[in-house]
């Protein structure tokens, strides 16, 4: 019994050591989890952009305005921490609100004029984000308390109350796309290669580009169906309300473009691998980085700068942003257009990479 056990142990261990690639990635995974999870989820949120406006007429700054702005600029959640707010002074309330609705700032504080009847301070919050609206509200409250003013504060959540499940539900659509592509598409592709089906392709006149495009299109359809199903299930579970048919169709369009982007990336990675283990450890790694920095769990504003850079090249970030803009904020093509363009550029790059690196010979 012992002899057999030792033989099996030796065999497994030899294989483990014989594949340094998998070895490195399995060790790298927990380290990356620590670094990325720790930084993405535990980071202190700071430098939240907010706008301040002095109500008019007259548009002259009241003492309340100047002292409050001073406090807002300098407020720190704890001592020695970076400042909580990046304060921008607006002179026009409509412009400030437009910036708020387009996501450039997270909140607007409107200070009453001298002639105002109730002297109420109005606070407008982008409630589609997670954590940030609460933080802005408490930060503004603390700053006002320091000035010693007793003006009432009216809080307006411009998108109403959005629960975390709704915030996260949108991210899960993108996760569904990624998982389908990684598990279904990529692994199947490598299994085909292991089974020699690709060798069968290679002795026919079919072109590399045809092979890649064929694989990407079938993967895209599968990923789209997965994204669509999760979207519908999400509506039922999380209570998201679609405002119009146009919004609904726009969501489907975004899911489709996101499917192309993620599938192209996976196919171009998978077409380089001939071993399921290597592929699985690589994609698990990509899954981690891309999903964590997509903003699906947690606002990207809480991440350190170096991690936030990844979002710029992360197709999932654009997908999550576009879906959230439509589903939670009711925004249209004007806002999600740049996301779609970014996704398309990404897809084209990934497809070209896939075609260029696909091995036409067996070596």
């Amino acid at each position, binding site marked *: 019994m012992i002899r057999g056990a030792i033989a099996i142990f030796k065999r497994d261990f030899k294989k483990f050591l014989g594949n340094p690639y998998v070895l490195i990635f399995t060790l790298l995974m927990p380290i990356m989890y620590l670094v990325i999870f720790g930084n993405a989820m535990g980071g202190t949120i700071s430098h939240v952009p907010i706008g301040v406006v002095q109500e008019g007429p007259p548009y002259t700054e009241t003492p309340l305005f100047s002292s409050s702005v001073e406090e807002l600029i300098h407020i720190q959640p704890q001592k020695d921490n970076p400042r909580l707010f990046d304060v921008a002074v607006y002179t026009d309330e409509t412009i400030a609100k437009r910036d708020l609705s387009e996501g450039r700032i997270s909140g607007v504080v409107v200070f009453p004029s001298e002639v105002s009847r109730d002297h109420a301070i109005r606070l407008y919050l982008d409630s589609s984000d997670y954590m940030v609206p609460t933080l802005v509200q408490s930060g503004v409250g603390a700053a006002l308390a320091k000035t010693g003013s007793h003006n009432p504060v009216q809080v307006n959540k411009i998108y109403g109350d959005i629960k975390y499940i709704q915030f996260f539900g949108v991210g899960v659509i993108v996760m569904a796309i990624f998982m389908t592509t990684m598990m279904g598409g990529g692994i199947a592709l490598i299994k*085909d290669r292991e*089974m*020699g*089906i690709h*060798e*069968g*392709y*290679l*002795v*026919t*006149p*079919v*072109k*590399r580009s045809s092979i890649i495009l064929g694989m990407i299109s079938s993967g895209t359809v599968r990923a789209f169906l997965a994204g669509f199903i999760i979207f519908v299930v999400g509506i039922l579970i999380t209570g998201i309300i679609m405002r119009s048919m146009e919004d609904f169709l726009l969501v489907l369009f975004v899911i489709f473009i996101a499917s192309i982007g993620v599938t192209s990336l996976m196919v171009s990675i998978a077409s380089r691998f001939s071993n399921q283990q290597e592929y699985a450890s690589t994609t698990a790694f990509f899954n981690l980085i891309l999903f964590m920095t997509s903003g699906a769990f947690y606002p990207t504003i809480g991440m350190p700068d170096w991690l936030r850079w990844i979002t710029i090249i992360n197709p999932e970030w654009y997908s999550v942003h576009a879906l959230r803009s439509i589903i939670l904020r009711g925004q249209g093509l004007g806002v999600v257009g740049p996301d779609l363009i970014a996704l398309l550029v990404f897809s084209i790059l990934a497809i070209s990479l896939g075609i*260029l690196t696909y091995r*036409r*010979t*067996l*070596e």
Partner: protein
Amino acid sequence: MRGGTAHSSGSGACLTPSTESIIRIEHITKIFKNRQTVVAVDDVTFEVQRGEIFGLLGPNGAGKSTLIRILTTLLQPTSGTACVDTYDIARDPEKIRGIIGVCPQNSTLDVELTAYDNLEFYGKLVNVDDDTLDARIWQLLKMADLADRAHMKVQTFSGGMRRKLEIVRAFIHHPLILFLDEPTIGLDPESRREVWEQIASLNAEKTTIILTTHYMDEAEKLCHRIAFVDKGRLIALDVLENLKRLIPAGDLLEIGFETMNEGVVSSIRQDGLINSVEVKEQKLVISAKNGSRVLPAIVAIFEKFSLPISSISIHSPSLEDVFIYLTGRKLDGGNGDLKPAGRGRVP
């Protein structure tokens, strides 16, 4: 990048069409460099003639499959050139893929698809016309005796059925040249015979067939010309009869006896047509260039000494004997100066 070559011109050497040869291989060498350097194909030169069944014969690991993979554009040679029809393997791989059919050693069927779907899929990859594809698929399924299983998944098929399906798939588009890498490996005798019949009937339709095998009987039965490959080198190439003549010993005669007389042995040795005589237990083993011609004289000697013969057998050399002879001599030669006998015969 080789993938994108759109120009149709082959290299100068390949362009001149030859009525005789369809494949010309010149000094092809393939070296694999991983942890160890392996010379899989070592400076091989030969031609395959139009319309023949050409056999590449050799033990496992001799380099047969590597050679096939080079000719089917799956691998690039380390050095040397080869022409397939009028195309250079390095310059026009896409053109070559259009005129060849390949049945690789390891199955490339999709076992999760049905037999029909496998053929349909492949037919589309090799550009079979949609109008004729369905009829062609049924024709092939009947040929492979699989028509009643057309819509069953390949994973339910036996090894022989899969192999037959894969072979018919390889010529769905009526290729000019068909490469079969170990077509009957692991098949039972019945299936092997069926595969052989298929190959022979295809060849009757003017398809050139290149076949690798390590079964001597297969090569003997099917091939017009046979190339012996061993350790990456071509050691002999000729028609079967000529290959057999390479063995100077000729036929082996075994005469069984009960009692032996020294006089018999010495008398037989007198015969000029006989190469050697040995006594092994109850048998006299005689090697002669032409066994049936010397036999009467041997029988006469036995009668002269009034000794009874208990058995007679004449054994013509098989391909296997030729192969053992060729490779054996190579091994005996030791220092590589003594190249195998067949080398001089290579055209």
